[in-house]
C-alpha cells in the first residue's frame, strides 16, 4: 500500500479531487456505454420479435377462407 491511512488515500496529498474526478467520469461513461449497448441489442431483438409475430398474424388472417367481398352493413359494437 502506497498510503498510510484511508484518509491519505482519499486526499492523495491534495490531488484527490483530480484523480477521483477522472476515475468517476471514466467508470460512469464506460458503464453507460456498456449498458446502452446491451439495451440496444435487447431492443433490436424485441422489435424483430414483434415484427415476426405481426407477420405471422397477418399470414394466418390471409390464409383463412373468406367469402367474396360484400358491402353489406355489419353492426359492430363500438364500445
Amino acid at each position: 500500500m502506497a498510503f498510510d491511512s484511508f484518509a491519505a488515500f482519499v486526499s492523495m496529498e491534495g490531488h484527490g479531487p483530480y484523480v477521483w474526478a477522472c476515475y468517476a467520469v471514466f467508470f460512469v461513461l464506460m458503464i453507460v456505454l456498456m449498458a446502452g449497448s446491451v439495451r440496444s441489442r435487447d431492443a433490436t431483438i424485441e422489435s424483430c420479435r414483434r415484427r415476426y409475430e405481426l407477420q405471422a398474424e397477418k399470414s394466418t388472417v390471409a390464409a383463412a377462407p373468406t367469402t367474396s367481398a360484400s358491402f353489406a352493413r355489419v353492426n359492430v359494437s363500438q364500445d
Partner: protein
Amino acid sequence: MWQFFHKLGSPKWFFGISTRFMPWLLMSGILLLMAGVVWGLAFAPKDYLQGNSYRIIFIHVPTAFMAQSVYIMMASAALVTLVWRMKLADVFVKAVTPVGLVLTFLALFTGAVWGKPTWGTWWIWDARLTSMLILLFLYGGVIALDRAINDEKSAARAVAVLVLVGVVNIPIIKYSVEWWNTLHQPATFKLTEKPSMPAEMWVPLLLSVLGLYLIFGWLACIRMQTEILSREQRTRWVKEFVMKGKV
C-alpha cells in the same frame, strides 16, 4: 485462408462465434482492468515529480491508446469495405465509432484534469492535444456522415472514404511529442525500449490497457450483433434466433 476470410464475412458465422467468446472477453477484461486500476491507485509508488496526480495515467493511457487503435482498426475495416465489399467490415465501422468517440473524449478529459495540477492549465493548443481533438471530431464526423445518408451502401462507401482520409491524423498524434516541442510528456511504452518507469508502475498500466482492450472487444461484438440483427432481420436465421434463441 480464403475459406476463413469468406467465413469471417458471413454475419451468421460471426454472430455464432462472437456469442461464444463474449462472456470470456467481458469477464477477463473487467478483471484485468480492475486489477490494474486498484494496483495503480493504491499500491503503485507515487511519482517523485508529479506526486499522486500521475495515478490518472492508469486510465488516461489506456483510453488514449485505445482511441487511436480503434481508429486504425476502423481504417483497416474501411479498406476491406472498399476493396472487397465485405458487409461485416462496414458493420464493424458503424458499431465501434461511438466507442471510439467515448474513448477519445475520456482521453481528452482525463488529460485535461491531469494537466491542471501538473502543467497549471486544463488546456493548451499543443500538438498532441490538438491532434487528439481532431480525432474526436473525426469520430463525430463519421457518425454524422453515416446518419446523413439513407442508402446503406452509399453510406458505407462514404464513411469508408472519410475514415481512410482521416487516418493521416494517427501518425501526427503518435509523433507529435517527438516532432514538436510540446508540453505533453513522451510515450510511456515503446516497442523498442524498456519502459523508463519501474515495474510497479508499468505492470498495472499494462494490465489496464489489456483490460480495456478486451472490454472493447466485447463492446465491438455486442454492438456488431445489434447492427447485424437489424440489417439481416429478413433472413431465416435471424428469425430462428429471435424466436428460438439459437443460431
